[in-house]
């Protein structure tokens, strides 16, 4: 299936994954680890080990600097 992945502040890309893919699999084409981002579906974070059940996600990086 194709999922639109929007990495906030960077790029939006259509990612093709297997039907049983997890949200972590959506990050594979990007230089991002699941531990440093939140994957949002309709404004809520989803666990990265869960199967993908949407056609669009937003990916937001955690930053800490102040």
């Amino acid at each position, binding site marked *: 299936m194709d999922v639109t992945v929007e990495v906030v502040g960077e790029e939006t890309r259509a990612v093709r994954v297997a039907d049983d893919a997890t949200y972590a699999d959506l990050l594979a084409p990007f230089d991002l680890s699941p531990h440093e981002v939140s994957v949002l579906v309709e404004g809520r974070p989803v666990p990265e080990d869960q199967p993908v059940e949407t056609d669009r996600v937003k990916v*937001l990086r955690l930053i*800490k600097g102040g």
Partner: protein
Amino acid sequence: MSLSLDATQLDRYSRHIIMDEVGPEGQEKLLNGRALVIGAGGLGAPVIQYLAAAGVGTLGIVDDDVVERSNLQRQVIHADADVGVPKVESAAAFVERLNPDVTVETYETRLGPENVGSLLEGYDIVVDASDNFPTRYLVNDAARLAGVPVVHGAIYKFEGQATTLVPGGPCYRCLFPEAPEPGTVPDCATTGVLGVLPGTVGCVQATEAVKLLLGEGEVLEGRLLFYDAMDMSFETVPYRRNPDCPVCGENPIDSIEGIEYAGGCAVEAE
């Protein structure tokens, strides 16, 4: 016009008072307002600068660092002569020079689970201008339990994020349930940071703080503002309360006791 603002204050705050959205009543709210700023570094500097100029009557400042020369490229309330001086002391001196209406309460300490409750007590709002995840999660959790709004800001190289965490709305954990493991997200000392970046993001935080104290305008509740300095673009990312959030969800914690504010800062299920 209110009689409690004296002639000097009517002059000093005249550009506020003339606006319907502020007026003398709003200026008095600011003068009676109490804001706690966590961190007097890159973000804290413009927050402290503008809240003091705006006449926020009491500014609490928490920081356990001293001013270093490498801070001065962005931490605009500290000066060359302040190198080696505790940041809270340098910040308080800056505010004293700027506005005698403002009382500064300094806390030269590291915010931790053992002192967060007493530090938050008596403040109307908290501005999170810290530089690490344990503090950010601790501030979120303790402030939500205390019912105090938090204005969040964070920066990385050329990008910044800001959002406002208001009781009743989503909290930081609704957006980021757990912190990354230490070492996975670099800090400013490792990656560098554009000197003016915290100025922009800190001013957004100061704006939110002033609006909260005035009770005016739409704050960034359920919205994360993302700023890219290189593209000079702003984007707003909506987010929602998470019913599974351990802090503000359907089965919330009633104290921070037992939460390990290190590593992932996870709230373990009981």
